[in-house]
């Protein structure tokens, strides 16, 4: 990719910034060739990768190097886009929001600093991936489990900071963060919570600060660069039981939600319950052309045939309970009785007890896997995906409203409907997966228009996304319109005060520092 300079930065100024960065991290860790820029492009970009082009990448190896680079970024007025491992697939990967921003790749900071077997937490740097932490837990035989996202190739901290979700009792990953160390936009270094005191052993145990609590102010944020954080982990249970129901019809999701949510809120179920639609299973069985060889959406009659042929329900609930066996058994009886009120068929039950092997695809037991990424292969070619991810109240009424709306819009665009709802408590995260071939320009253009329509129509109904791709960060922020966008005004007041040069992640989540305010919406092509 050719060089795109940051706004108002001359080639000479840019070059002197690169030389200055190299003085800190070493020449090999400043990556500014055309090939390097390609490496940091959005792998799954819906359209040209040059819409979100990095000018270079810099990879510090320590907190001191991060601080030094941030100070130099201020001096040279060159903005940085920090990424942990840069695997935010479907949401922009490692690419920056604003043209010419230098990616700060924290992948070399990959130390597991603590793994506390008794109090069940770890302290990790941003470059630590789920696989790395899983391997370390196995090596130490620590009685701990992870909570992992669908694609576990990425960073533990990066995923939590991006509000990623998993499918265990610890599935709300941002909530597992406790005690953050962050480099601020002026290069200062902050520790939150009890870590604000030197050598306080409760740094990663007590989740609040004395006074305002800032931990989550660094999530989906451009207020600082997180260089380490505590992450709470699940103690390995004595037993676990998976109970699996195939749910026959699309509209059954209403009673399923109304059955499970009260049990989740009461604490009887402590897992984040993941309910994917049938296509989630089909994408692992082959390619789309094996089941439907036309470009149009798979019609209802063919869906019916496929469900029958592969003995699938429209949805699947694979609910998992954790704990001592008598407790799990008692909880299971309550859950099964509740489900039986609407579904006579007995569920499948799979027990696991300490000492038994754990299957490689057991995402609900915290086993990391990249295998769900196989869905990229579903459409063929250079497959890619984007997730449209609104949050809705976890009631049957809201979930059915949301599903009917999305399903209709997606059908109107003649695209396959692939949705999941994850019950995280009083809310459900709805992810509508849109899969496409990056090299098919017509398909990409259609997906962008579809994405626009989903945002607009969903916002009209009163719901918003919890996370989005670079190209839609501004439009989604625009949907948060209470008191004429008071949230954005506040975010930007704080941002501009802390970061007058706008050196950290300008435009992240639609929050722009004053000096780049004119860049708002600049990469958004309105579905073109």
């Amino acid at each position, binding site marked *: 990719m050719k060089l795109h300079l940051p706004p108002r930065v001359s080639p000479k100024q840019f070059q002197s910034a690169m030389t200055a960065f190299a003085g800190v991290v070493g020449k090999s860790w400043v990556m500014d060739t055309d090939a390097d820029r*390609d490496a940091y492009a959005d792998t799954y970009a819906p359209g040209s990768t040059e819409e979100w082009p990095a000018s270079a990448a810099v990879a510090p190896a320590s907190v001191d190097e991060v601080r030094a680079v941030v100070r130099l970024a201020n001096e040279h007025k060159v903005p940085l886009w920090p990424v942990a491992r840069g695997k935010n697939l479907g949401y922009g990967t490692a690419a920056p929001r604003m043209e010419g921003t230098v990616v700060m790749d924290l992948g070399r900071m990959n130390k597991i600093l603590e793994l506390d077997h008794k109090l069940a937490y770890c302290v990790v740097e941003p470059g630590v991936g789920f696989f790395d932490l899983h391997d370390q837990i*196995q090596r130490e035989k620590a009685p701990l489990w992870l909570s992992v996202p669908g694609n576990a190739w990425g960073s533990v901290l990066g995923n939590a900071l991006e509000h990623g979700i998993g499918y265990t009792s610890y599935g709300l990953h941002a909530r597992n963060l406790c005690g953050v160390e962050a480099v601020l936009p002026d290069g200062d270094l902050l520790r939150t919570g009890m870590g604000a005191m030197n050598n306080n052993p409760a740094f990663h145990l007590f989740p609040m600060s004395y006074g305002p609590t800032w931990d989550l102010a660094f999530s989906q944020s451009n207020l600082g660069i997180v260089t380490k954080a505590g992450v709470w982990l699940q103690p390995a249970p004595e037993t676990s039981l998976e109970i699996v129901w195939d749910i026959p019809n699309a509209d059954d999701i209403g009673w399923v939600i109304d059955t499970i949510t009260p049990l989740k809120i009461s604490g009887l179920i402590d897992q984040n319950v993941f309910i*994917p639609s049938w296509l989630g299973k089909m994408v692992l069985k082959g390619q789309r052309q*094996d089941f439907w060889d036309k470009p149009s959406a798979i019609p209802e009659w063919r869906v019916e045939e496929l469900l029958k042929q592969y003995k699938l329900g429209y949805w*699947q609930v694979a609910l998992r309970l954790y704990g001592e066996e008598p407790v799990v058994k008692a909880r299971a009886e309550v859950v099964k009785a509740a489900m039986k009120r609407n579904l006579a068929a007995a569920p499948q039950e799979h027990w696991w007890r300490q000492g*038994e092997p754990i299957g*490689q*695809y*057991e995402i609900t037991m915290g086993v990391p896997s*990249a295998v769900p990424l196989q869905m990229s292969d579903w459409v063929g070619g250079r497959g890619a995906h984007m997730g449209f991810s609104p949050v809705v109240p976890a009631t049957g009424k809201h979930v059915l409203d949301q599903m009917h709306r999305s399903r209709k819009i997606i059908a109107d665009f003649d695209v396959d409907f692939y949705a999941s709802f994850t019950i995280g408590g009083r809310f459900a995260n709805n992810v509508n997966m849109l899969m496409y071939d990056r090299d098919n320009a017509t398909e990409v253009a259609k997906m962008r228009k579809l994405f626009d329509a989903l945002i607009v129509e969903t916002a009209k109904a009163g719901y918003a996304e919890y996370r989005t791709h670079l190209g839609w960060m501004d439009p989604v922020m625009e949907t948060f319109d209470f008191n004429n966008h008071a949230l954005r005004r506040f975010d930007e007041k704080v941002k501009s005060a802390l970061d007058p040069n706008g050196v950290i992640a300008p435009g992240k989540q639609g929050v722009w520092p004053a000096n780049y305010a004119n860049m708002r919406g600049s990469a958004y092509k309105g579905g073109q």
Partner: protein
Amino acid sequence: MKRVILVAGALALSAAAFAQAPSGPPPMPPYMMRAAAPAGDRLAPGRDGQSLFEAQCGYCHLAGGMGTNLLTKQQMMAGNPPQKGLLTNREDLTGDYIKTVVRMGKGAMPQQTKVDITDAELDAVAKYLGKAG
């Protein structure tokens, strides 16, 4: 074609949050228990290609990994035995081809940065896998 779909389906059975096979969980494959990356300067040549491959590429390219699953399917469709889905069983890969795929990406595989795998590490991996020269 049907056989290919069945095998690919079996490889991916019970992925993500779906029910496991009735015969019980498959054993943890090598990619889930990668050895630590070999010590040493990541920019210096001469580190062990096999260990680097297992540590840096093993997430997807050891047995049971996503890349292996997809390549197994591709190899079978091309009339080759499923074992050829493992890069370590391939005799037809050249070092230069491996370097290109790693840096440019291919199909569902995203491109890899120099932080993911340095040029020196990629040289060692390409030498290890590139049995065709």
